């Protein structure tokens, strides 16, 4: 390749990349840096100015409500992450590995994705008539004679937020795991079986390790979404569950931009740690 065409190719590549890169720098990186910067601004009741101060940070860590929201966020994240994994893995195992017929596997996956064509917020709201005191679950349980009095803890509680988030996000766990399971060479499993390994042994020694990249991708998806959540907790907890996202929304609502930014920075750091942690388990670049 001559030097002239090489430079020409570089120039073309630059022109192709520039719009996208500039867009991301201006509207993604600059805004995040702005959040960090504004978290040190001075906030008064009605306005905000760019005199740098640690006041908002002190306020955050001095307030039980704010620090509590941090713990609640971590707790809900851990619970929803475990729930999506525990509920999603068996489904992924069936769809990705046990169903031999490719068409049926595709149909099952499409069935899982269809609910996403209903507005996210309406899907959240639909849990209310499901979980309420006179909701579908209580009615069914009463008709079956399993309970006498309706279970009240189902709605406007931590439990309702966990159920709602799990149902909304579990598919992001199922998809990547099913994908990785589908790529496993069946001959390996056959070979292990021929050598006399039981299903439990095959699962722990072969299937699970090979599906791990899918688990990590799913876990990253779910974590990113759950950590940034506020709508589900707002709609289903009756203001009992306050996540970091909810704090940001209320602070922006009352024009307390500095405090919203502090929470934003904490959320960003939290996410960075979580995602980096997951990426340490599996080297995704090598696997994909």
């Amino acid at each position: 390749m001559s030097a002239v065409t090489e430079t020409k190719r570089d120039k073309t590549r630059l022109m192709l990349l520039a719009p996208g890169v500039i867009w991301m720098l201006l509207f993604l990186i600059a805004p995040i840096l702005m959040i960090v910067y504004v978290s040190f601004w001075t906030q008064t009741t009605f306005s905000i100015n760019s005199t740098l101060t640690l006041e908002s940070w002190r306020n955050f860590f001095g307030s039980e409500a704010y620090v509590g929201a941090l713990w609640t966020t971590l707790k809900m994240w851990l619970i929803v992450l475990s729930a999506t994994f525990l509920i999603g893995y068996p489904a992924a195992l069936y769809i990705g590995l046990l169903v031999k017929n490719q068409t049926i596997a595709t149909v099952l996956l499409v069935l899982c994705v269809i609910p996403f064509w209903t507005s996210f917020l309406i899907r959240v709201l639909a849990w209310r008539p499901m979980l309420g005191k006179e909701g579908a679950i209580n009615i069914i349980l009463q008709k079956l004679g399993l309970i006498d009095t309706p279970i009240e803890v189902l709605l406007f509680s931590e439990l309702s937020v966990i159920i709602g988030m799990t149902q909304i996000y579990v598919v992001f766990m199922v998809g990547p795991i099913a994908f990785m399971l589908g790529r496993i060479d069946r001959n390996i499993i056959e070979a292990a079986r021929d050598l006399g390994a039981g299903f439990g042994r095959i699962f722990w020694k072969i299937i699970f390790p090979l599906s791990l990249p899918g688990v990590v991708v799913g876990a990253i998806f779910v974590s990113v979404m759950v950590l940034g959540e506020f709508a589900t907790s707002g709609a289903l907890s009756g203001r009992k569950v306050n996540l970091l996202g909810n704090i940001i929304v209320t602070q922006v609502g009352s024009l307390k931009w500095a405090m919203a930014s502090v929470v934003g920075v904490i959320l960003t750091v939290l996410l960075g740690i979580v995602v980096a942690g997951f990426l340490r388990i599996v080297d995704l670049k090598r696997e994909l």
Partner: protein
Amino acid sequence: MESKILKPILGVYVALFILFLYGPFIVLGIISFQQGPEGGPQFPIIEWSTYWYRHLFGMTPPSRIAPLPVGEALIRSLTLAFMTMVTSTVLGVMAAQAFRKRFRGSGFVFYLIVLGMMVPGVLTGLGISLLANNVLDIERHWFTTAFVAHVVYTFPFAFLVMLAILNRFDGSVEEASWSLGVSPARTFRKVTFPLIFPGVLSAMLFAFTLSFDEFPRTLFASGRDQTLPLAIYGTFSVEIHPNIFAFGVMTTLFSFALLAVYGILMGLSIRRAKKVAMQEEIE
């Protein structure tokens, strides 16, 4: 054999799992036929009626229940989704095209783009609002600040879809075209683009549906005129009526219509590609 027992058990489990995914939607569908205007968003169904569907279209006598402000919000959301779709698909195709050959700094650019889908919407929205308010001093609008936030989110999806398509792309047809003296721009238009069109369609569908339903980024970045998800969010704070569920059923039907159009276009483009291939064989 354990899998003889395991498979049926997991089969039943998957059936229950799918019921869990659809449960709220079934309930939503049932309650959308609740009697109105006294019937609330809960069981039991007092009497089956289409009241809430008529209410949605303003075909019912006035009552104390305010209609959903869907008309203008719907048009705004459709416009915004369309703008986002076009922009992010163009950016996605361009960036993916640049990634056909490895280059210095490709890792950095890759992560920079993918970061757009990893950063929670609430942060993107907050950051863009801060920039608009305090640095640029411009008013926030759905077609400016919310639009750029949407593209930050959908561009990575378009990019990844196009990357997957171009990875499987046979470059020899392009080289043949170049060596025949056709300019690169014309080669892209006449050879490359028709071949990657199914991927472009998928990227467009992704971008459109993601933007149409996008809520956290829009909440802070959109200013005073509401988009559709914001109009729905507005009802969260007041009393909920079954009209919102009727609306949920309607939007789902709309999405399926969109999906059907996508399927038809996809089928047509695949059939055309096959036809071209057959003609080449004959010649």
